């Protein structure tokens, strides 16, 4: 297997609580691989650190330790102009397209500006490229004169993706890219990610809390809880045979739209909230909410191999019952 285009190793991003001076361990030793032409899902509850991980990858947060290797170079060690040029190959898509577009710029101006930043000096070349970018995200050329407020949410998010594509990126980090959109228009954006993957070999890290959307888009999925990866696997394995009690609980909480299925299902209700990342539980971080927790869970759990590329951070992952496949 070729080396992944992006390899995150034991990454730690901590924040300091201004009142107590304590460390908020948002991202606390995470390793993650992303291959070219692959959409990888990163799921977990709010506050688990998934956005912090994404923001650290693109340089919006500063890592405390660990490494982020992109095409063989350590991004955390890169400085200056070459660093900036390399970083541009990793682009970020924000959750709310309306607040990430300027209200005073037309679509054409926003894309033009992105092309200038990426070093395209020729005006005529930029004009041609703007139309190519709009076509790449399946938007009509007439949209160049529109302002953000004059478009629908799905169109706005596609403009944001077009702007990211102006940098000719190899990796897209997408943080909840459809959660602010109405359900009937989410498909426009999700199918665009699939197309970019298939046509351009784009690698996408899809950060989302909607497990059903991630299931259809991602080949592999990481499940994060309190700053740590709890389970990792091919989508078919992770959704079909979840090994970690946290993954099982998350999946069982996803509501089903068919009322008969919804009544028949067995739900694992987790009690309480995610503990504070300032003072995470010792041993297994999930043990305070885990329905299967035992005494041994107060010690740090091992990463247990369940199958090819399928691992779970749980003392009992090897004995977890096999789900229906």
């Amino acid at each position: 297997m070729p080396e992944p285009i992006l390899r995150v190793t034991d990454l730690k991003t901590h924040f300091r609580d201004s009142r107590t001076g304590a460390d908020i361990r948002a991202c606390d030793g995470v390793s993650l691989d992303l291959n070219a032409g692959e959409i990888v899902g990163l799921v977990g509850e709010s506050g688990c650190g998934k956005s912090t991980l994404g923001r650290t990858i693109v340089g919006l947060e500063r890592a405390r330790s660990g490494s982020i290797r992109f095409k063989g170079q350590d991004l955390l060690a890169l400085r200056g102009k070459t660093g900036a040029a390399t970083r541009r190959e990793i682009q970020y898509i924000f959750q709310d397209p309306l607040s990430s577009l300027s209200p005073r710029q037309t679509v054409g101006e926003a894309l033009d500006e992105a092309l200038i930043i990426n070093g395209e000096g020729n005006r005529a070349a930029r004009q041609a490229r703007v139309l190519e970018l709009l076509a790449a995200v399946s938007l009509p050329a007439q949209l160049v004169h529109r302002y953000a407020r004059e478009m629908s949410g799905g169109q706005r998010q596609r403009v944001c993706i077009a702007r990211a594509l102006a940098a000719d990126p190899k990796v897209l980090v997408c943080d909840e890219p459809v959660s602010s959109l109405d359900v009937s228009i989410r498909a426009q954006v999700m199918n665009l990610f699939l197309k970019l993957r298939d046509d351009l070999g784009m690698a996408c890290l899809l950060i989302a809390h909607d497990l059903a959307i991630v299931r259809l888009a991602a080949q592999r999925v990481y499940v994060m809880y309190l700053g740590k990866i709890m389970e990792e696997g091919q989508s078919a394995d992770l959704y079909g045979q979840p090994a970690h009690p946290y993954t099982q609980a998350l999946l069982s909480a996803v509501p089903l739209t068919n009322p008969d299925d919804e009544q028949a299902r067995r739900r694992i209700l987790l009690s309480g909230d995610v503990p504070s990342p300032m003072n995470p539980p010792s041993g297994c971080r999930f043990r305070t909410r885990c329905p299967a927790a035992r005494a041994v869970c107060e010690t740090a759990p091992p990463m247990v191999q369940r199958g090819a590329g399928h691992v779970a951070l749980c003392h009992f992952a090897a004995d977890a019952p096999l789900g229906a496949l």
Partner: protein
Amino acid sequence: MIRTTHPAPPPLEVDGFSVTLHTPNVSVRPVDRVTYSVEAGEVLAVVGESGSGKTILNMAPLDLLPVGVDADMAGSVRFEGRDLLKMTASELEAVRGSGIGVVFQDPLSALNPVRKVGRQLTEGIERNLRLTPAQSESRAAELLALVGLPDPKSRMQQYPHELSGGQRQRVGIAMGISGEPRLLIADEPTTALDVTVQAQIVELLKDLQKRMGMAIVIITHDFGVVSGLADKVAVMYAGRLSELGSVRDVLVGPAHPYTRGLLQSVPSLTVPMDTKFVGLPGQPPNLAHRIDGCAFAPRCAEVRADCRGHRPGLLSVPRSSPGHLAACPVVVNQNI
């Protein structure tokens, strides 16, 4: 005149209800001749995308639109037989506290940031249930325990920002039910929450509904919440009901092309893994413009020439339950 031989009027009867909003430039009608009712102990879900009018439909009769919005209302919205639209401000205030409880979408903005949680709860309880401060305090602690907040006494000493999103929403629900209402209106109570917390809140509402015998109107765009909680579903599009029926009729046998399209847009955990994402083309109409014919026609796969002629009303869906209605003559005629 009230005749005692008649059964009690239902908690909510909405009849030909319209809302027109006036701005300096345009007048729009986000709610257009909507009719439905909610029986005692029943849970109705009002489903629709942003801009469909579902929040205005429910908040306007309670005078809970944002300050400064100039709204004209027509038709009637009867709570236990009394028309909310004909009530004075003080009558409405009395109903809002003890007859109808409200849970807002964003619990952080519904709570006063500079007052302790306990004080905000007891204030309403003192007024609505006419209890002494000491009685209200113990009632508030009971309510917080009822909505599943551990250690309610110390929670009452906290400020809203010291609670998590799920805890704040529980406080919001506790406030909504604090006047022991017969009808609870919950506007997107789970939208800002994670699925694990959402599941807890849905269980909580179901449990409260059973124990207190309340009727609930839940406003949501999430069909998953609908299937777990509702008895009846009203689907809204461009200010009108496009489909109305029992939860099974609407979610398992949807008739209106909009409902079908919306349901297909929600991927479930049970579809094959190589399924492509399906959505609806286009976008909802701009309500500031005149809508001729069916408002969904520009996005509809089943559209015919006469769909653009006049705007269809709700029709009985053939070969379904009696109360199952859809505003689509094309589908209804196909099925006869």
